[in-house]
């Protein structure tokens, strides 16, 4: 049982790391701010989600798992908001 969980963790965390890497490449290579922002948020959402998901089986109690999930939710929330703010600032800059 344990080994299955470990393999699951390795797979999910690696996938998460890969998504982060892809996001970083996007951040560096995409042409303008809006598309870069897009790359960044995708990495945040999916990458972190995968990593948290992968780590869940490794937690020894409910409380710790709950903490992990709330970390992910918080990042989701603040990430989405801040991205909105940045995007609006950019759009205002374009219009002006």
């Amino acid at each position, binding site marked *: 049982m344990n080994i299955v969980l470990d393999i699951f963790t390795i797979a999910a965390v690696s996938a998460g790391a890969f998504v982060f890497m892809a996001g970083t490449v996007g951040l560096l290579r995409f042409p303008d701010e809006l598309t870069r922002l897009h790359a960044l948020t995708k990495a945040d959402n999916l990458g972190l989600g995968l990593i948290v998901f992968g780590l869940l089986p490794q937690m020894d109690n409910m409380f710790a798992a709950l903490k992990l999930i709330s970390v992910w939710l*918080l990042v989701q*929330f*603040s990430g989405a*908001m*801040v991205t*909105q*703010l940045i995007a*609006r600032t950019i759009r205002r800059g374009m219009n002006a």
Partner: protein
Amino acid sequence: MTMDIVFDIGLVALLISIAVWSIVARDAFSAIMIFMVYGLLLSLAWVRLAAVDIALTEAAIGAGVTGMLLLNALARLRMTGSDAAPAALPLRIAAGVLCMLVSAALSALVLFPSGEPTTLAPAVMARLGESGLENPVAGVLFVFRSLDTLLEKVVLLLALLAVWSLAPDGLWGGIPGLRVFAEKKSVLVFLAQTLPPIGIMVAIYMCWVGASEPGGAFQGGAVLAAMWILVMVAGLRKVPSIDSQSVRLAMAVGPVVFLAIGIAGIFVANSFLAYPSDYAKPLIVVIEATLTLSIGVTLGLLAAGPPEKVQQP
């Protein structure tokens, strides 16, 4: 073990190259951006050194609040493009040689330590029980070396006084020049309405577990400060004037309670800053709770800067 060391080598290489970058970067804006990344990496280094308490402090204060402070400064200085060229070449070479010598001497001392490793960890663990705390770092901060911690709170207060003192005479008692983006129905307002309840809970949690697990007044205070600034920047709460009675009270209450309990120790526990044995833990929790509030307010005001507007009657 080998995996660990590979990770550590990577981390150290990254830390050093980012530090180099932030020093040599052409313009100040990138230097500051890079420095914020540096702060976050540094917290990772603290985790690797088995110092979770410091990692939290570094992330909250070293990277978070410091970065915010520097960014705000940059925005106000309206600095664009490259700043002034570095010093003349001979000076740079001389400085480089000198700094390399310093680094080399320090590295040599680290690589070839002369004696056995020194540690007070056994002494701390042997007497930690008397304080009722379980987190040894909190024990050192609030029990064994509490005088340092008390004086450091005064330092924080003085730093704020120093920042305020920069205001012109006529603006004393005015409102700090924090930039407010008050715009109804903006995303920022939504964020400032929803995040703080969670943030405040996190701050209280951090302060509460500080006695037994990593965390404590500083980390909690920094989170509190961030929430307060968010609310002010979004225009949901007015930036208070610096002579507001409640602000002054909130700033001072932590050190005052700490000092009062310390002085009470003279009479009930036979020494300044000693706690009566059965009440040590509750007293420390009270100190930490009030300090969290004071630190939050002080950090927030430090970031807000000196008063720049006259108070509207």
